[in-house]
């Protein structure tokens, strides 16, 4: 049993530093006068927080407009935008068209991320193990109990698998990561769909719950023969032993920016009403199957159009100039085709009190 401090601590410290740095720079924002724009307020997804604060930092330097983003969780973000206390909300889970219309909202994807199954198996190197959706579902539902089960062996004829009990690790807190993971399992496995379903928190049939991505990463690292799921950035930064997945097309794919972007590009956003599209189990040979986007919500007819106008400017800027920073933080920027669609959506549906479009 090796102690994972060495790998975890630097990332913990790094994230603490980022938070400290951001909280220092974000609230001191009287310089907004320079551009005449109001500071932007947003709330929601914790997954969106690191890139939102990075963008906010750069955007403030370039334009003088600050962004105050509270990472209170996706559910909280939806509540806040519905009660109009923030200019935009952000969630890992899209709203249905009915919900959007009821609240007078539009939604659009801002950034893409992926969820990676990670394992701790002696003698198995990162990326060596291959799983498909059905097997993953059977493991997490508790039907496959041992690592040398025939189903896992069939996918990994060359890997020496131990005859150990599988220790399952899942998120204990409600999270968009869990939503994407369970949504994928529900799409590929009817038994999972019937027994567990898809949500940001579910009734787990088996396993230990750990708090946050860092909690799951920590427990997986120190529990022998365990499997869990974390966001891509955590798997990468902690050098965890990730699993390659067999996708919908039956091709084995490696998680990474290319395969996440493939999933986003292959999705037919134009045909999805209200851009309500979860990218899991996407078509395409190169698509990573557990991919998802962060959705941002705007009010169609905001009470303060000038606030929304500056929020639109921010996201317009993020689409145009934020890609390098996103990639540096292991996020995936939206493909060009999708941002064109989003900009068209802004033009068509966001109006000020005089009925004039807020984005041109």
């Amino acid at each position, binding site marked *: 049993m090796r102690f994972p401090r060495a790998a975890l601590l630097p990332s913990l410290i790094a994230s603490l530093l980022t938070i400290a740095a951001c909280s220092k720079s974000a609230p001191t924002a009287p310089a907004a006068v320079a551009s005449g724009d109001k500071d932007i307020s947003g709330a929601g997804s914790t997954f969106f927080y690191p890139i939102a604060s990075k963008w906010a930092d750069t955007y403030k330097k370039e334009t003088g407009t600050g962004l105050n983003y509270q990472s209170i969780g996706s559910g909280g973000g939806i509540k806040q935008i519905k009660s109009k206390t923030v200019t935009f909300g952000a969630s890992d889970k899209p709203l249905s068209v009915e919900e959007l219309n009821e609240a007078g909202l539009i939604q659009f994807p801002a950034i893409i991320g992926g969820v990676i199954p990670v394992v701790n198996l002696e003698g198995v190197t990162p990326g060596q193990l291959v799983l498909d959706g059905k097997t993953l579902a059977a493991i997490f539902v508790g039907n496959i109990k041992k690592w040398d089960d025939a189903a896992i062996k069939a996918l990994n004829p060359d890997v020496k698998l131990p005859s150990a009990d599988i220790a399952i690790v899942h998120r*204990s807190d*409600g999270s968009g990561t869990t939503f994407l993971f369970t949504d994928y399992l529900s799409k590929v496995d009817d038994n999972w769909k019937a027994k567990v379903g898809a949500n940001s928190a579910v009734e787990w049939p088996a396993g*230990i*719950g750990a708090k946050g991505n860092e909690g799951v990463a920590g427990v997986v690292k120190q*529990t022998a023969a365990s499997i869990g799921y974390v966001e891509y950035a955590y798997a990468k930064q902690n050098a965890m032993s990730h699993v390659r997945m067999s996708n919908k097309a039956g091709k084995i794919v490696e998680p990474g920016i290319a395969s996440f972007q493939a999933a986003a590009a292959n999705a037919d956003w134009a045909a999805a009403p209200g851009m309500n599209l979860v990218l899991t189990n996407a078509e395409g040979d190169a698509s990573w199957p557990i991919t998802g986007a962060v959705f941002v919500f705007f009010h169609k007819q905001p009470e303060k159009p000038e606030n929304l106008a500056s929020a639109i400017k921010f996201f317009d800027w993020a689409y145009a100039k934020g890609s390098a920073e996103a990639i540096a933080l292991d996020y995936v920027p939206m493909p060009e085709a999708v941002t064109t669609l989003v900009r068209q959506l802004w033009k068509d549906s966001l109006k000020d009190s005089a009925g004039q479009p807020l984005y041109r």
Partner: protein
Amino acid sequence: MNQVASVATPAPANSITASALRRHTLWDAVLKHGTRSAAITVLLLLGGVIATLVQGSWLSLSTFGPGFLTTEKWNPVSEEFGALAPIYGTLLTSLIAMLIGIPISIGIAIFLTELCPPRLKRAISTAIELLAGIPSIIYGIWGLFVLAPFLQAHVQPLMIEAFAGVPLLGGLFAGPPYGIGIFTAGIILSIMVLPYITSVTRDVFETVPPTLKESAYALGCTTWEVVRKIVLPFTSTGVIGGIMLGLGRALGETMAVTFVIGNAHKIAGSILAPGTTISASIANEFTEAETALYTSSLISLGLLLFLITFTVLAIARLMLLRLQRQAGK
């Protein structure tokens, strides 16, 4: 003392004028009403908290009825919620914490008051008070990264092996050794309640009149006999009060428990299995509870915890009151 005396002397009684008297009366009135409203604020706050909890949990309590207390199911997808698993986890972790914490705390208190050399006494007392000052998140991180792997590798396999096949106990210690679970949470809690129980019991042990103890020693009692027959009977209510304070702390502890309990809404027979507590469930799930019923069920859990800790603390107050009356005799 000296300072008070020197302030009082230069103002002789005959120098008080009518205006000074009025001023004094006014200030007294201000003090009286000011402090009274400060005290009333506490009652209003408490009342407000209870009212909000009841209002917030109304939806869930009216939907599930008394079944909320007896259902193990906690399914956010189908929106069926029951509090049995968190209640079970809360009570069981606290029980383990008390089973480990009480003997050690009382042992420390006896050593400090009866046997310890004065110099060491100060060092140990300070160390125990520092233990109380460590933030619970630190206990959580320590539990997850240090204690849990240690238990998993060295303690739990031995426990599982030792009790395997023994009826009843075998089930209690069954397991794969995850390192994380109800047992680990109980151990962390026992460390966290140590300073509370120790400092209260130490203080009440010191209220034992020296003459009593000296008489016993003069009759030829050993230290053990003095502790067993004089100190403990004299202070029993106070000791129980201290234990109740510790129990109150253990019941409500959130962060440290969340890290090491495994957060599974399940009642497993084994204490090595993952479970959950009321406060851990709330902390984990509140931010992402999207539907009204889900939120309301979490608030109902809060109300339950409030009732449980309130009962425990009320019992503690009663015990301490009885002690004070006894000491005043």
